[in-house]
C-alpha cells in the first residue's frame, strides 16, 4: 500500500462524509447520454431558488405540497462532493424532455426514464436519494432520504452520510428531516 499524500486527504474526507464512490450496478443507456433538463448543482445560486420553493411549500402553498409529495426530487453526491438534484424526467429517444415521471404511469417504449445516474452522467457516485414533501407526516414536512438503489442503499452507506448531505443543504438555510433506509445485508 502506498503512503498517503496530502492530495488524498480531501478524497478521504469525502469518503467519510458521503461514502466511497461506487459505480452504479445497472445503468440504462439514456442515463449515460442525457441529463435531466431540470438538473441543478447545489450552490449559492441554486440553493437560493430552492429555499424559496421549500419555504413557500412549508408556508402552506398546497400546489407545491401535493406536487412534491408525489414527485420527489432526485439527488446524488458526485465524486468531487458536489450535490446534484433534479426531477425524475422521462425523455424520448433523442433525449428530449417529455414530462416528469409520476408514479404508476408506464413509460412507453421508446421513451425512457432518467434515474439517478443521469444526474452525474452515469459515473461513480457517493450517496444519493430523494427529496420530497411528505403530506402524510405529522406535521407535514420536507424529507431527504437515501432512496436510490444505485447510490443510496449500497453497502457501506450510513445514516451519517445522509445527515451530512442534509447539513450541506442546511448550510443554505434549507432544512430537511433525514429518513435513512438500511442497505441490504449483502453488498449489491
Amino acid at each position, binding site marked *: 500500500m502506498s503512503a498517503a499524500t496530502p492530495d488524498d486527504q480531501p478524497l478521504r474526507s469525502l469518503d467519510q462524509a458521503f461514502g466511497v464512490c461506487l459505480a*452504479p450496478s*445497472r*445503468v*440504462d443507456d439514456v*442515463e449515460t447520454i442525457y441529463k435531466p433538463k431540470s438538473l441543478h448543482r447545489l450552490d449559492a445560486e441554486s440553493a437560493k431558488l430552492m429555499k424559496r420553493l421549500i419555504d413557500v411549500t412549508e408556508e402552506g402553498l398546497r400546489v407545491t405540497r401535493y406536487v412534491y*409529495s*408525489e414527485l*420527489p426530487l432526485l439527488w446524488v453526491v458526485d465524486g468531487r462532493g458536489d450535490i446534484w438534484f433534479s426531477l425524475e424526467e422521462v425523455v424520448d429517444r433523442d433525449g428530449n424532455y417529455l414530462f416528469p415521471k409520476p*408514479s*404508476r404511469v*408506464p413509460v412507453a417504449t421508446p421513451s*425512457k*426514464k*432518467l*434515474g*439517478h*445516474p443521469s444526474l452525474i452522467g452515469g459515473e461513480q457516485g457517493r450517496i444519493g436519494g430523494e427529496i*420530497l414533501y*411528505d*403530506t*402524510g*407526516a*405529522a406535521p407535514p414536512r420536507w*424529507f431527504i*432520504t437515501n*432512496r*436510490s*438503489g*444505485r447510490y*443510496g*442503499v449500497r453497502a457501506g452507506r450510513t445514516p451519517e452520510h445522509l445527515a451530512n448531505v442534509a447539513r450541506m443543504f442546511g448550510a443554505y438555510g434549507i432544512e430537511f*428531516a433525514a*429518513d435513512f*433506509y*438500511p*442497505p*441490504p*445485508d*449483502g453488498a*449489491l
Partner: protein
Amino acid sequence: MTEIASITPQRIERLRPSDIRLIARHSDELEAMSIVLASFVSYLRCFKDPTASEIDDVLSVSLQLKAADAWKIINAVDLMRAFRKYVDQSIYETVIKAVGVSESKDFTIIEYIAQRLGLDPATKELLPEAATGVAAPIPVDVVQDNKVAIVAGAQNTPNIKSKKSSVKFEKLHHDCLKYAEELRNTLGDTDCSVRGAYRESIERYLEDFPTIAGQGNMLLADSEARSLRGLLDEERDSLPPAIVDGLHRFFVAHQSICVFYDGVGQFYEQVRTGVLAPRLEETVVEFLAAIEQSPDFIDAAVVRAFREVDLDFKRLDVIAARLEIEKAVVPADPISLSPLRAWHYGVIGAMNAIYAAYRATKAPVGRTSSWLLSGQALAAITAPALSRLGASGPEAHLAGH
C-alpha cells in the same frame, strides 16, 4: 384498517416516510399486511423486461418495506416463490437479494394476498423438491380427492413387452400363486409341526402378492419370500421334506415372477450400491407421526404401507443378522442383498415418494398454512436421511427455510 388501505399499488411505488411509519405500526397485523403486500405483488407484476431504473425502484421499495418491518410477517423468499409465475425473473431476484431470507412464518398471509389479487399462488414452490432417482418400495401419487394414495406402479404392475412374454407371465403368475397357496394350506394344517412364523410369512406374502395389475406390492411380497428363505436356512434340517420341497418350488416361481416387476429390480439395484443412513429408527417414528397427523392429505392405506415397508424389511434384517443370509442361498439368490441396506432404502425411498406425492397435492383454500407446515415437517424429516444416502434431495433447498 382504513388507514392502511391507503397503501395501494400506486402508493407502494412512492412510499413516503409517513407511509413507512404507518406500515410499521401495523406490521404484526395479518390483514393489514396482506393489503400492503398484495399492493407490493401487484406493483411487481407491472414489470416486463424492466430497465435498470425500474429495477432500482423495486430494490428501493423492497428495502423501504424492510425498514417498515413488513417482512416480519412473511419471509420475502416465500412470498416471491408463491407468486413467482406472475413476476419477471430479474424483479424476483432483485427482491430476494434486497431483503434476504428470514425465518419461515405463518403462511396464511399468502392466501389472503392471493384472494385479494385473484391469483393462484404456487404453494408447492414453498416446499423443497423431493429427491429424484430414488426408487420407492411403494407406488404413491395424488388421486382425485387431492390425497396421497397407493396407485398402480412398477411395484404392482408387470412390465410385459410382448404377447409371448404375456403368456409366460400368466403361467408364472399362476404357478407362483398356486405354490404359495399350497404352502399356506400345508402350513395351516393342524397336523403340521412347523412353527407359526412360516405360515404368518406366507400369509403376508399372499396379501402383498399382486393378483391383479395395480394392486398389491411385489417388492413387499419379495421381502416376505426373503424372510421365508431365512427361516428355511435356519431350520432346514428339522423341517419335513414336503415343506422343504414346497418352499423350493415356491422360491423358484417367485424369483421368476419378480423379473416382470421393474420396481423390484430398480429398488435392489440401489440397495446394492447403497450406504446407511443414521438414526433410522427415530426417523421412522417421526415420519410415521407426521403422516398420521395429515389424514386429510394422506390416505390411511399409505400410512399402513409405510409401516409395512418398515416392518417387512426390518424383519428381514433381524433374520439375516441371525443367519448371515447372504451366505445361505436356497435356491441361489439372484440378488446379492444386504438386508440392512434394504431396510434403509426401503424406508427412505418410501418417505421420499410419500413426500413427493404430498408436495404434488394442492393446498386447500383456507388451509394453506397448515398444508405448508405439514409439508415442511415431512421434508425436514426426509431430507437428512436422503442426504446421507447421497441422493440429490431437498437439503439445499431446505436451508432457505
